[in-house]
Each structure stands twice: as C-alpha cells, then as structure tokens.
C-alpha cells in the first residue's frame, strides 16, 4: 500500500485552479470527491505530487436549466444527480445510471465530473449522458470550449482535457419530442459493484416509427462508445422484438470488450446483446411507442 504523498492546494476560484493546473502540469491532479482518486493513490495508479482541490469552487456546483438545456455542474455529486427532479424530468436514465454507482457513501462524495474525468471504461454516467446527446463544457487556461461527450473520452482513463483544464459542466440538451431513454447494466452483485457491461439508449419515435436512435455502450470498449450501426438499423423501422434483437446483435458486434476479472469478452458480448434489447424496449416504452 503506497503512502499518499502530495501537496494540497485549494484555489479560491476556477481561474486560479486552471492556472495552478497548467503550471504544475502532469505533476498535479484535480481533486473532486476523491472516491476514485484516493484509492488510485493506494493502488499506485495515481502518483501526482500535487492535489488541487476543487471543492471551494461554487461555480462548479449545482444542477440547473439554461435555455432549455440541463446543466449539471462538474462538482454535482452522484447522489445529487440521482435525486435531482430536473435530471429525472430531462433524462431519467441518467439518474438511474447515477443510482447504480457504488454505495450511498460513495455517491454522496463522488461527483459526475470525477466520473467523467477519471474516465474508467466501466463508469456509469458517461454512457447515459452520451445517449442523451450530452456536451461537456471545459474551462482551461486558454478559455472555454465545449464538445460532444463521446469525444471527451480518448481511451481508458484518458480524456481530451488539456493541462489545467477542468470539466465545468455536463450539458444535456432538451430531449427531442417523442423520445425515451433507458440505462441497463449488469454487475456480479446487486449492492455496490462495477458494471460488467452496460447499455444506454435513447429512442425517438414519430408516427409509430423510430426516427432517431442513440445507443451508448459501457464497460465493453476503451471508452463509452456509440453503437452507430445498431442505431442506423433502428431508424425508420417500427419497433419490434425482432428489430431489437437485431440491434442487440449489432451492438454485440460493435462492442470491443476485453476479458478481465469481471467477465470474458465473449460473455460481455452476450450481455451487451441482452442489455441492448432491454434498453431499447424500455426506451421505446418511455418514448410512448409500443415495443
């Protein structure tokens, strides 16, 4: 077990945090809830000698609505996301994904920003957000930028963040009329366990047909990935069990799972197919269409 060795910084505002982050570069890590970062120190996966605590930055807190979009501050805790009526009203599957994370004690400290920025492939909120067409707002020494959530993740534990850049917020745009979402995960245990595979879906219905579909896969690829072929197969079709089974099979085909402690790649593909099927059925139902 490694000793956690770091200097602790607590900047008073975001600009100061970004400047400090840029100056210290790779030798620094931003600290939000710490539920992933502190164990990573003990596992010697994190060795940054400076911790920049973000908990003083009020501008990163809160969940609100701006111009019809849901804006979730990077420091919103997973418990807040899980319990937020705004999140549930906008895209309940995101709240459900949040609820599936860890234990109550973890959720009360862990943040959605941390869940994104640590970029563990089996993280739960990213696929749900990606399915909802989320954007991430980044603030850094060079200013602000925004990008599609799916582009934020560049590899296992790797993101598009530049040195000194902070994930300020996750923005979920107003969901299309006639749409519904779902988040389905499989874990080895009901209480507090990492996902072995997960599928988030959003289906938009019009006139009895699927007019848009987004399927994001979790824990079965280096990043939360959009299953584009499966989505394309759905568009223009009326929902049916047969169609969902086909989409499930395509998801399984598109997934890039690995074999690890939690399951083999083959098992994960099987799970993806089943979970996609279930996610599509629930999303369609929520979209007001009969599966």
């Amino acid at each position, binding site marked *: 077990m490694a000793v956690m060795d770091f200097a602790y910084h607590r900047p008073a505002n975001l600009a100061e945090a970004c400047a400090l982050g840029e100056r210290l570069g790779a030798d620094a890590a931003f600290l939000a809830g710490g539920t992933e970062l502190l164990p990573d120190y003990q596992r010697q996966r994190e060795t940054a000698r400076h911790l920049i605590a973000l908990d003083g930055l009020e501008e990163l807190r809160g969940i609100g609505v701006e111009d019809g979009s849901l804006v979730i501050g990077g420091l919103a805790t997973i418990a807040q996301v899980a319990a937020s009526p705004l999140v549930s009203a906008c895209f309940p599957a995101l709240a459900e994904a949040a609820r599936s994370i860890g*234990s109550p004690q973890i959720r*009360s400290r862990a943040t959605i920003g941390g869940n994104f920025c640590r970029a563990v492939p089996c993280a739960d909120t990213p696929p749900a957000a990606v399915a909802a067409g989320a954007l991430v707002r980044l603030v850094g020494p060079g200013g602000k930028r925004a990008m599609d959530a799916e582009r934020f993740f560049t590899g296992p534990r790797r993101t598009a963040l530049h040195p000194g850049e902070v994930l300020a917020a996750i923005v979920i745009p107003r969901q299309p009329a006639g749409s519904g979402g779902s988040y389905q995960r499989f874990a080895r245990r009901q209480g507090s366990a990492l996902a072995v595979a997960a599928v988030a879906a959003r289906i938009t219905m019009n006139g009895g047909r699927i007019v848009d579909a987004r399927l994001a896969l979790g824990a079965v690829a280096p990043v939360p990935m959009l299953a584009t072929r499966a989505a394309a197969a759905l568009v223009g079709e009326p929902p049916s069990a047969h169609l969902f089974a086909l989409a499930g099979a395509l998801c399984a085909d598109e997934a890039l799972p690995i074999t690890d402690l939690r399951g083999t790649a083959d*098992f994960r593909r099987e799970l993806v197919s089943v979970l996609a099927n279930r996610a599509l059925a629930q999303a369609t139902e929520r979209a007001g269409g009969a599966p």
Partner: protein
Amino acid sequence: MSSEMLVHITVNGQARALAVKPNATLLSVLRDHLDLTGTKKGCGMGDCGACTVVMDGEPVMSCLTLAAAADGKQVTTVEGLAAGGDLHPLQKSFVKHGALQCGYCTSGALMSSKALIDRNPAPAPDEIREALSGNLCRCGTYGRMLRAVEGWREFDGVPFDVKPHEHGEQDQARDHAVVGRGVTRYDAPDKVTGRAKYTADLHLPGMIHAKLLGSRIAHGIIRRIDVSKARALPGVLAVITGADVPDVWYGVSPAREDEQILARERVRYVGDEVAAVAAVDEDTAERALQLIEVDYEELPAVFDAEAAVAPGAPVIHPEHPRYAGNINTRVDWHFGDVARGFAEADHVRARSFVGNRTYQAPMEPHAALARWEPHGDRLTLWASTQVPHYLHRSLSRTLGIPMGNIRVIRPSVGGGFGAKAEATPLDFCAAMLSRMTGRPVLMEYTREEMFRHFRGRHKQHIDLKVGVKRDGTITAVEQRVVLDGGAYTSFGVITAYYAGSMLPTLYKMPNYRYEGLRVYTNLPASGAFRGHGVPQPRFAFESLLDMIAEDLGIDPIEIRLRNAMEPGTRTCNALDISSCEFRETLTRARDASGWREKKGKLPRGKGIGVGCGGFVSGAGYPIYRSDFPHSNAVIRVHEDGTGVSLHIAAAEIGQGSDTVMVQIAAEELGVPYEQVWLVECDTVLASLDLGAYSSRLTLMGGNAVRMAAQRVKAQLCDVVSRELGCDADALEARGGRIFMKDHPTLGMEWAVAARMAFSRTGPVVGTGSYRPPENLGGDFKGGAVGTSPAYSFSTAIAEVTVDLETGYVTVDRFTDFSDAGTVINPVTFHGQVEGSIVMGLGEALLEDTVVGAGGHLSNPNLHDYLIPTIRETPEIRTVAVESYEPHGPFGAKEIGEGSLLPVMGAIANAVYDACGVRVTELPITPEKILQGLRTAAEAIEAPASEPMPAILQSPGAAVR
C-alpha cells in the same frame, strides 16, 4: 510536502481545530487525533463501509475523505449517537434485534442507518437495503439490521435492559430461567456505542507502528537484503530480516512445522514476509519498506496442484525430505469394502467437482500490539485472534521464553472464520520489534496483506463416486480430493483429513474409500475456513446425490431420508454419533418450504433445491498432543453476593460465545444474567481454553463453565442446608434465591447465602474443566480428525431465480432447520445460521481469489473480491428442531459451522432445478450458467444421431 494544515471540523457537536497533514484522512483524524475509535478501518479503499460517518447529513466513507475536505463540516460518529447516557433508539433496536455479531461493521451500519432515518424516519425495506448496501457484514447479520432499522421507533423513550425482545425468537420449550432465552448479547452495548476496543483501537504511551515487507516474487532464493537505506530514514527505529529473528520453524500443525517468522533463505509465494520495519508512524514505516533492497535469485514457480506434482516441478520445501515432490499430506482410507459395495449397487454415478479458494475476509484486519517489559523479560501481546492459547504457545516456542513470561490478551475480535486461528508474522514481529526498541509496537495487516497471508479455503479437486441400490440406499462411496495447499501447511494436514472424515456423518455408508492429497504450490497458504475442509466435499456430495435421485426418479428429500444418519450410530470411519435429529430437519424443512408444491413444478427460471450438512461440536483432540483439559473456567462470587465473575479464556469473535458462557453460568448458579461479569480474555486472568475453532465453545467451554458454577452452587447450598437444616440435595438455586425444591417458600436470598459463605471461608470460587470422552475415534492414521462428543445436522432449502438471458442468480428464499441440541440463546443461534446462509451464498455464487501472472493475486481487495451485501440477502427462515445432546451443557451442541455446510449444495441444486444447468465448479457464475444453457440449446438443436459428449467437455457446466 507534509507541512501541516489547520482544519476546523465539528465532531459530535464539538468544534475542533486540528493541525493535520495534507494526506490525512478524516478516518485517521477521528481515530488518531480524537481517539474516536468507534469508526473502524476495514479496507481503506471505500469498499467495506466500516468507516462510515455522517458528514453534513450524508453518509460518507471517512477513509476516502481527506480531513481537508471535512474543513468546516459537521461530522457525527457512532460515539455521537447516544445522548445524555441513553442509547439512541436505533442503537437499542440493533441490540434488541441482535443486529450485530462481531461488531466491526456495526458503527458504520449504524451511521448509514442514522443518515437514512434522519431523512426518512419510516423507510421501506427496499430503502433500508439500499441505504445499507455499502456496509459489508461478513457475519451476515443483514436481515437483522433490516428489521432493526425498520423498527427503530419502537425503542424511542424505552428504557434499555437485557431482556429478550418481545418479538424474540423461541424455538424450544425448556424449563430454564436464562438458558434458551434471547437475552441481549453481553457485548452489545459496547459494540453499538463504539466503546468496544479491537486490537488496533488500543493506544499505549510511546507506541510505535511496524509494517512487513512481502516478497514480490513467487519463488526464489534471497541473495542479499540491504536495509541500510531503510534504517537511515528519519523516524525508523528498527528494521529486522530473517537474520534477526530466531532461527526456528513453526506452524500451527505440529506435524508440519514449515514456516519461518521472516524468510531466511527462500521465499515461496508473493507476499512471503522477508523484513519488518518499526517507525514512529505507519507512513514512515511504509516509506522505509520501499527503501529495502532485496536481491532474489528467481526460481520457477507452480500455481496449481497438477503442475506442482508433475515430474521435474520445482521443489518448494527442499529442507525436509518428507515434502519431496511437493506432497504435503497424503491420506488413504478404506472402510468396509468399496469394491463389494459398488458390485452390490444397482446404479453408480461418478462426477468431478471443484471447490475454490475463497477467503474468510473478516471485517477486522489482523492486528497485534506487543509490549515487551524490560524488567524480567516479559511480553504482553494484544492480538486479534481466535486462539489465544495456540498463539501463546507459539510465541513461547518461537521466542524461546516460557509461557509464564507471556501474557496474551484478546480484545474484541471483528470476525475470524478461521483466518485468525493461528499465530501470524505480525504477532512474532511485533514482539521482536518491541524488544528491540523498548516501545510498544502495533502492527496491522492491510486488506491486501490479509488476502496474501490468506489461510482461506483450499482449492479442492474432487472426484466422487457413489453407488446405490434401486431404492436409493447407498452401498459405497469413493472420494478422491486433491487440495492445493499453497506454500505452507497451516492447518492443512487436518484439512486433508477433514475433507474425507465428515462425509459419513450425514448418511449411512457401509463402504467408503477416501484418498486425499494435499500439495504445496507457490501461493498463499490455505488453512481452516468455517467448515474446515468439509464444505466442498459436502457440496459435491449433495450435488451428486441429487443427480442420483433424478436418475432413479426419487425425490431428493426422500433419498436423503432413506439414508439419513440415526442417533447412537458408529460410522464406518469410527465416529460416534450421539444425538441426531437429522430426519426431523429434513421432514420439517420439506413441509415448511412447500417443497411438494414447488419441486419440479416451478416455471422455468425458478428453482428449489435441498442441501444438508453438519459438523463437529468441538474437535475430540487438541491440535498438539496434550493431556490438559480443553476448556477451563473459574467462577468467583463477589463478597457481598450481588455479583459473580466468570474467568474463561474463550474467544468471542462475533459468534456470541461470551453471551452463551454468561447464560450458562447464570443458569447453573441460579442468578440473573445481568449479575454475571465476564472477565476479559487474558491468559493472566484465566486458564487454558483451546479457542474458537471446530465449533467447540458452546459444548466444551459451556461444560467447563457449568462445572465451575455447580461447584460454587454446592458451597452456597451447603451454607443454606445448614441454615434450613435440610439436605443440600434438596435445594435448588434459581432467580437469585436458593430454596427447597419441594417447599419453594423455604429458602434464602442467593446473595445472603453468598455473604455467609464468604464470611465463613473467604473467597467463594469454583473451578470447572472439560475434556472430551477418552479414546474417541478409530485406531488408524488420522482417526482423530472428525471425532467429537457430538454432531450437528441441518437441512437447508434454497429457492432461486435464474435470469435465463444473463445467467444471473438471485437467491429468493432460504429455509433452514437445524439440530443444534438445546439452543442456549435463540438470537445468537439464528444469527449464526443466517450468517452461514449469507456466507455460503457468497461461496456458491460470487467468491474466488484469482491468481494472476507470476502468482500475484488479481483481486486482493473487497472491490474485486465480492462478498454478499444486504442486497443479496434472501428472505431467511431458520428453525431449531427439538433435540437434546447428553454430552452438551443443558443438551447443547454446535451451530456455527454446520449451518454453512448445506448452503452451496442447496443453491447448486436449486439452480439446476431452475434452468437445467448443473454447475460442478464453484462459484456458479452467470457465465457458467449461460455456457450450460447454450450447450443445452445446441444439444436440442443438434440432429438426433449426433452424440452428446460436448456436454461433458464443457468445463464446470453440463445439462440434463
């Protein structure tokens, strides 16, 4: 980097300004700065919840919360729950519902519950399950926690007492005042308030900390160890290696003393201890470990039993010719004539099974605190141990000082299940380092080190063959077990015998052959884990018996009834079964579970299965040859007669033995439960007790206590008989009075009699001891293993749901009927059975330590090694059948281990009933089930002419 910072935290209503290091966690500040040791460290990684506190209204893991992040916050710990000397209603509810056993998770569970009820005073069961889903309890007390939180408001404003909860459990009608009553646990008030001190909670003046360095390779020769840099690190007080410790071989099993305190020449597994550092604090010790340079000559290593016995395999213990070929233990038993038995059989079925390397994972990490007294060469050791006596003896033998110079104290122990049944390098090194530094030395394992030290279940490869008559009567059984023992013996010799010895105790088997082979590998040593060697063969047997029943078209419970053990039987391997109500457990479990309506009649995906088990009520012989009585007790009456002290060095580890001992003392003496003080387990204050293993305490410790009480009572009755002018035999003691049996109004207050006795002769003391009946067991090698004065029996019925698409198994319901003799305390009895079901569920469905490249464990933590949570806990019904064991105190026998044995078989059989997949390799994972389902689908789709051997080739799964 480590300059201190000032934080302001309001803890339990009190504002505190604290100078802390930046890396200090809230947990360390609470424990080390504020001495609030009720908050526990179970993993340090946010996986177990033992460190849960409430911060600004929310439950948080204090081990993952930096003290700096708690700046300006309100923190409540378990010590802040009770107000004005009165327990919080939630605490009372936990006590009254028996919602705690070892107590190590209790503070955290209480704090998660507190955060919930503050938000929602009347939570629904699902909300409680969710709120407690991050609080691991290895005693498996989840169902009781659920009820305690549900019913907490009943205790608002209710005065606290020790009486049984009004909805308290009662199984047997007995004419006793204290025995058989669900009085509250003796240790409960301390455990719900955080006052109970576990070893690592102790703090002595001048205390320092030490850490062990483990080998980073699985097998090698130590060429050179350079500790100079570590010694030079400021704050380091001592560094020791194998060269600095006594050159002795030790081991809990005297037949194979193959361990060294620190490796001198050779390391045999990843984690094998090579050095230890004592320093002013843990961080400094840890830093010093990183500075120790060990130069190894790496040797080939073997990680499974087959490779270990292959020709040319590296020899793991070349120091002794008896270990040649990596064979640690070989058993060859033949009772009756199996060849004839199989010839007489109408049907023979054989199958291979694998039981895995599961870990006990007690919530409290091992810890030892040593204080060497410079005057007189004396050592005091506080240790988290199940076996104070074996630890005491091991210390004496390895350190070369008499037992009289050593004092072993067992503070509260947060669970053991066999993991703490022998001395560890922590115990020896803490003692050595204390002698070298002149300071008290505290050592603890991290969660990862616990997994590496291990002593968990052996991996067992089991080949089982059973022959039966057409009506299901067993004619012959043949079992071959290969046990992967890891790098050292630990209890393994005994494990290899137990794996064979206990099969014949449940079913009558006239002819039985058992071959056992325990093999050394370069893995952490396997040892004695709850059920000791027996659970996996039992899983195999219960599975195979179901297959045979199906072959013959006999109901699984019926085939068990036809072969069920009967009282007063001598088994084929010369074990004497005394009381036995096995049939009763079978028929009542069948009726209570609705078996007849469910078996074979549930929709696909739903299943019901039966499993049976049983265990010894204490081993018939000690681990080392000795003529000492196994349990010993002293009772001393206080001079004014209003109190009694009970001295016994029995090891309460969560199973409830302290409570049972006090109940037995109170019952026999005739005083109320609350008048008995149990003296702390301390080898200076109490005589030898062999400890908490082989489910021995209720029967053996209980008999010793009862004898001591009888001898005290005799002295008081003598006084009373003189006063009343009657025969002492005519008297009875009960409820604080001693009176004539035939004229209950004629008598005397117990305390008055005690005062008169003290006035006459001085201290009133009674001693008691227990030794098992002589000459137990057969006159063959290993015949001692499996002997016991009494055996338990139980039947469990599992009901499961299998998700046919993902293979996920949910255990919905468990029904258990046990024959444990007289139940001394129904609350602790049911707590043990419920805990066994939860633990067995983990072994059946979830648990296995996985060995990765180079012999490194892949999941040595509670994040990747998943044990059941409250969310996995099924609805459980447990019942004690009417039974009386003549060898047991008031008719009692064991429950703690026997109740685990039916669980895996019952689940495996229920899974098969649900989906037709027979998984023969534990754990029964969703992946194996899907594999089995797929094979079934392929088999059905295959042309009829196609043979079906693929089914048999599919590892771990097959179909009907």
